[in-house]
């Protein structure tokens, strides 16, 4: 059962050196209020997993600009020039993962499977160091689960028990990330009463969410 807390209380749960998954795609569906509070608090040496680097002054890009991120694991960083600059200056490590593999590895971390086989990246540098398993004459890479200390997600409607409904394309990585971290903090555009989201339309189930921050965009 999730607990509603202030954004300041929420970011106090994130520690220096934590691995933090952050939902969103170029900032769409990112928990912007939590990111702002995290930037303000100055928590350091974070390893951040996020689809992309967003922009220097938007989304998780703010945490890169502020130097709080030690390592970024993402699929695309081309639209945030700060990432390249900090990489070249040796201030930021970047690990790039194909987007489908990234989503599936996070799902894997959340659902207790120990890995999965994919053709994606076979024959490329992505395959370096990975076990290859041949099935019916096809070579697959064995990809392993990704987990995190904390996941920061954002939903459009979240009920007070923690059930989440996403609007538009905001669900992206939020859905899998909510399953794959020890601690899940969900920012609600709008906090609603239990039952306001039909049980059929809940996308992230309450049992995955530990803390809710009311984004107040009711």
């Amino acid at each position: 059962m999730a607990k509603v807390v202030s954004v300041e209380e929420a970011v106090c749960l994130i520690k220096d050196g934590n691995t933090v998954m952050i939902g969103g795609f170029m900032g769409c569906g990112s928990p912007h209020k939590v990111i702002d509070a995290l930037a303000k608090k100055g928590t350091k040496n974070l390893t951040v997993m996020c689809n992309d680097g967003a922009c220097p002054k938007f989304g998780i890009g703010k945490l890169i600009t502020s130097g709080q991120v030690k390592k970024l694991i993402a699929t695309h960083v081309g639209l945030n020039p700060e990432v390249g600059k900090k990489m070249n200056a040796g201030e930021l490590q970047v690990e790039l993962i194909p987007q489908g593999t990234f989503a599936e590895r996070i799902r894997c971390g959340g659902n207790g499977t120990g890995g999965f086989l994919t053709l994606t990246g076979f024959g490329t540098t992505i395959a370096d160091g990975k076990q290859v398993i041949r099935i019916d004459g096809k070579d697959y890479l064995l990809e392993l689960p990704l987990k995190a200390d904390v996941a920061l997600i954002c939903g459009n409607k979240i009920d007070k028990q923690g059930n989440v409904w996403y609007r538009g394309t905001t669900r992206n990585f939020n859905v899998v990330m909510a399953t794959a971290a020890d601690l899940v903090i969900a920012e609600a555009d709008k906090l609603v009463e239990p039952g306001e989201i039909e049980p059929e339309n809940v996308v992230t189930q309450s049992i995955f969410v530990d803390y809710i921050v009311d984004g107040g965009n009711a």
Partner: protein
Amino acid sequence: MEDIKGFIAARVAKELKDSDVVSLGIGLPTQVENYLPEGVRITLLSENGIVGEGLIPSADDASLYVVDAGGQPASVLIGGSFVDSAVSFGIIRGGHVDVTVLGALEVDEEGDLSSWIIPGKKVPGMGGAMDLVVGAKKVIIAMEHTNKGAHKILKKCTFPLTGIKAVDMIVTEMGVMVITDKGIELIEYNPEFTLEQIRAATGARLIISPNLKKMAG
């Protein structure tokens, strides 16, 4: 040619059939949608989570909640739906996409593709391209034939690869090529260019199709 990109996009559009599920890369490939033949309705997949992407909304209609794979405002058609990233790439990897159209830095005669990194210069990342090239039933590369004269169609890619034996067809302003077991076969040429010009602009052996046609723009 005034609108090289439009010319390429229009030719690619002819490869799409009614009911196809299609994924278009950022840039030139996005324009393919503007040239769909009459009667051809496709379902456009935006890999960040739209099945049935619609037109680019006007500034007034744009919502913070719906963006495309480039992070730009987008819309969903009636009868479309939103999916999370794991479902989206399940659609892609699972063979449910009929055609993907992508840009490239380099393509070679094995069908290998480089598109995500220029070492020491640019590290944008592969995004969804590595999944698209293994998952889509047909992979079409839509690009200018050369990079300001420098070959992009090669015997062997020099940049890190996006995928191996991945490309089915290349469409440029000079012609249409398919990747065969024997190499790159030119099946259509743009009569604005001579075969010699096309050969010179190509860094790999070009097999001329016995059924070579003029390119339908």
